[in-house]
């Protein structure tokens, strides 16, 4: 399954976080952040919720799929 919407990079850059720092804040490695941003890896529900909480937005604002 691939994500049709992925605004993680946009949100990260808005907050001024590096990939390493974002990874540290949500408990994943830099490679995982790179993979999610590159659309190669779909984050788990837990990670998506952590990211949404960190950026104070809904999960749907960060990620989305086509119907």
């Amino acid at each position, binding site marked *: 399954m691939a994500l049709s919407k992925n605004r993680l990079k946009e949100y990260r850059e808005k907050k001024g976080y590096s990939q390493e720092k974002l990874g540290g804040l949500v408990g994943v490695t830099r490679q995982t952040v790179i993979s999610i941003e590159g659309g*190669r890896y779909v984050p788990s529900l837990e*990670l998506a919720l952590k990211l949404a909480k960190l950026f104070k937005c809904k999960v749907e604002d960060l990620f989305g799929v086509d119907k």
Partner: protein
Amino acid sequence: MNAKKRKITLLFGLGFIIAGVLLNSAKIGTQEYLGFSSAGTWMMYIGFVTLLITAIKWKVKERKVDERINYIAAKANRITFIAVMVAAFLVMVIDGVYPINMRYGMFMSYVVMFMIIIYSVSYKIIERRN
């Protein structure tokens, strides 16, 4: 290892060593126990190993394992399992045609080597793709 866990482990190790010394000095459990000359010696050994492991873990930086790595490992595991099943079937067929006359130990070492190679190669490939 966090500070609380480390403290508990250190106390456990020290407790075992002290208990071992006390048992040995009181000459309790002096018969051979689990390959050691006495139960006290065995307890001192366990305590010493516990302290050693704690000391090693103290220095070793904890490796970050996240969900992507778990995902890759699970996929590599699945591939290895399927490869071993296919290989086992092929070995059975080959053994039926040309009987395999190999020492059991040698055969098992080949199997283990095959599994390690398949796992590490598939892990690396999946890691690059994800």
